[in-house]
């Protein structure tokens, strides 16, 4: 009951599109700060801009209540070194994080996160978010502080930060008195509805089910100040034009589905990000003339075995980080830990460890399949993992509910893990890494009037990063709009965008969005896969060109929903092109960028230690290199740019 054909059989006719069709119709709105994307970063940006006195509007392609990668929840507030239980200095921890995250991390965003995400978390609590064990459900659980009732997480709890430790599980490893206490467990399933409620309370205009499609430059000139954006209603097809003094890009990042999409097996993006990350940020910024960086970065996906299981449904590889992995004979695997010994925190993200396990499986030392050993945990720890961590995290609350109803008992049972069964340590699939807008210390892009928050900027990080940078970008944009007059939008640019956006809806046959998507995936798999070379890149560019010349003009959308998917895939074509162009330009083999070049097996010393920027000027592709760590001294620069930072918001009543 409930399927489309059930309806057809019952009614004798297919259902009509349930929303009014308004293709071609326009709506025009004016605001101070326009936020594109109402996920975690976007909501925080809107709230912060509104609290700082700006008139704010959000464009969001779903309902803000549960939209975005963080819409369903979040169980960890990562990197909160400013919390009262922390044993590290926020500024020092920020440097440590920047180093741990590798050569091409984002020191600006990390510094903002480390300085401000505890304040952000306290503001979440003001809005009604649960951030402490106020109901005393987890008394005696390791990491719980009885005074503040904060639940410190085992995640990244060793002093050394990210990375793994050879002495994991040795007695006395990472004892309580030396833990850094930088990650707090939270009840994040409730957060997103509260953020929407706050937006409403603050008078933020919410344009929901409207997907942002393009930025508007002042007088329509590429590279000029950003003075608004356009969007399409994904239910009605109505075209929205918003004039704004500042725009905050917070539509998430480049698509995780650039290399693969396998709807038949695991939902149409088997990462934790759904279709939220659909490369809109990259494509919109690119067309407007903003500088992008890290577009050549890619990484191996470690989610489940290939595409078979979601993160949590049996795939212990990424997320059962405090549940030990055991073999079929209950022998504990030597996966490393980032946490404390008894918590068993593990994170099998180390290729050397994975290869070692693989060899030992082949030698018969470990027997498949593997299991996430909930039953082997102390009951109170298993309780916290199952009922707090997994229940509050994004897509796992439903797993907890479904499996509990089916009889799974976390005190007695172990969840099967599917890694290693297919010989390879499940790292054959690739995903984009870190590509996004270049930002400065105001989180402003290279264009006036355009800011970036959360996953839309280069080398972003997690939920609390998105929250803290959203809040920061909102504050900066609100300050900016006080100093500028509205800029002139250009009708010609609007008309061109409207024509581009509506084109697939004018056709009723030809190429459907899924085939286009699969075709693009294939290009990335073959020509930007494990081995790369200039010749392969050229073949990729040729094939993408053919897709653009032959498939795109035939792309069709039967309704506004399918039009949304078509437009997302068009963004992905731009993303793919930029990825290949920058991969070609960067003639190095670089583990930090996830690149193995057959034609340039060594790192080019000239190209080391630099970010490669890519942007358009008068329609021409330009490259530029700037040094890594271009942000300077993180503590000093942060303080220089935030002399008046007021800390936690003080509600008026």
């Amino acid at each position: 009951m409930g399927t489309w054909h059930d309806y057809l059989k019952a009614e004798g006719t297919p259902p009509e599109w349930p929303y009014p069709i308004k293709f071609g119709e326009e709506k025009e709105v004016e605001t101070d700060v326009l936020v594109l994307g109402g996920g975690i970063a976007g909501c925080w940006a809107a709230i912060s801009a509104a609290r700082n006195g700006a008139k704010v509007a959000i464009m969001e392609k779903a309902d803000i209540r549960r939209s975005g990668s963080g819409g369903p929840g979040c169980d960890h507030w990562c990197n909160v070194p400013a919390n009262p239980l922390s044993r590290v200095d926020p500024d020092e921890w920020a440097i440590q994080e920047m180093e741990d995250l590798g050569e091409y991390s984002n020191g600006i965003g990390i510094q903002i996160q480390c300085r401000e995400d505890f304040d952000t978390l306290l503001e979440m609590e003001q809005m009604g978010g649960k951030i402490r064990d106020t109901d005393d459900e987890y008394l005696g659980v390791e990491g719980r502080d009885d005074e503040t009732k904060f639940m410190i997480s085992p995640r990244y709890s060793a002093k050394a930060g990210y990375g793994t430790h050879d002495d994991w599980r040795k007695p006395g490893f990472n004892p309580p008195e030396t833990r850094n206490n930088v990650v707090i467990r939270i009840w994040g399933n409730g957060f997103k509805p509260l953020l929407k409620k706050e937006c409403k309370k603050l008078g933020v205009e919410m344009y929901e089910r409207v997907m942002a499609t393009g930025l508007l430059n002042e007088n329509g000139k590429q590279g000029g100040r950003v003075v608004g954006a356009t969007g399409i209603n994904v239910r009605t097809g109505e075209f929205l034009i918003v004039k704004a003094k500042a725009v905050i890009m917070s539509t998430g990042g480049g698509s995780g589905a650039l290399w693969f999409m396998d709807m038949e097996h695991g939902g149409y993006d088997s990462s934790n990000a759904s279709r939220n990350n659909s490369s809109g940020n990259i494509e919109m910024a690119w067309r407007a003339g903003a500088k992008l960086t890290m577009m050549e970065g890619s990484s191996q996906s470690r989610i489940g075995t290939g595409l078979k299981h979601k993160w949590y449904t049996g795939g212990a590889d990424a997320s059962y980080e405090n549940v030990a992995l055991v073999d079929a004979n209950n022998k504990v695997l030597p996966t490393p830990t980032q946490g404390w010994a008894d918590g068993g925190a593990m994170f099998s993200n180390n290729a050397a460890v994975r290869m070692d396990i693989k060899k030992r499986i082949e030698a018969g030392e470990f027997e498949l399949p593997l299991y996430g050993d909930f039953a082997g945990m102390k009951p109170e720890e298993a309780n916290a993992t199952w009922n707090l961590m997994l229940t509050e995290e994004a897509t796992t609350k439903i797993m907890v509910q479904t499996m509990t109803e089916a009889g799974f008992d976390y005190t007695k049972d172990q969840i099967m893990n599917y890694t290693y069964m297919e010989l390879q340590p499940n790292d054959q699939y690739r995903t984009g890494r870190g590509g996004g807008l270049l930002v400065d210390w105001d989180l402003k892009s290279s264009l006036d009037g355009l800011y970036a928050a959360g996953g839309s900027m280069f080398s972003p990080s997690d939920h609390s990063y998105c929250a803290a940078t959203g809040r920061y970008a909102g504050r900066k944009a609100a300050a900016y709009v006080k100093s500028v007059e509205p800029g002139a939008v250009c009708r010609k640019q609007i008309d061109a965008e409207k024509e581009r956006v509506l084109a697939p809806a004018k056709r009723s046959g030809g190429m459907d969005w899924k085939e286009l998507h699969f075709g693009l995936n294939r290009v990335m798999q073959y020509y930007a896969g494990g081995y790369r070379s200039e010749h392969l890149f050229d073949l990729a560019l040729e094939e993408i060109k053919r897709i653009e010349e032959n498939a795109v003009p035939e792309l069709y959308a039967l309704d506004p929903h399918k039009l949304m998917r078509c437009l997302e895939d068009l963004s992905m074509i731009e993303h793919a092109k930029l990825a290949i162009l920058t991969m070609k330009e960067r003639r190095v083999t670089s583990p930090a960028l996830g690149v193995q070049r057959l034609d340039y097996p060594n790192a080019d010393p000239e190209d080391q230690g630099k970010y490669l920027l890519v942007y358009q000027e008068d329609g021409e592709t330009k490259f530029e290199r700037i040094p890594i760590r271009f942000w300077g001294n993180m503590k000093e620069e942060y303080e220089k740019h935030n002399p008046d930072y007021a800390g936690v918001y003080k509600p008026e009543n």
Partner: protein
Amino acid sequence: MAEKVYAIPNVQTPNVPVKINPEKCIGCNNCVETCQIDVFIPNPKKGCPPIILHPEECWYCGCCVTDCPTPGAIRFNYPLPLKPRWRTKETGEIHQLN
């Protein structure tokens, strides 16, 4: 008389990410609005269960189920290739989600 057979293309796979109980569903369309994907559309008949229009686009976030105001009206249904298995440690008995 035999039931009328319609000419329908192959259905999408997976096709039933959730199961809706028409006895319990009050047709409030909370799931239609909660779903960030627009997997559902409202039923043209007011008060009737929504129609699953884009089942294969589901990303299994589960919010339609966990936020449903009517207990039991909508249940999650992992597709066949995603049914988790688990083992009772003491007995070694292996189970699988139905």
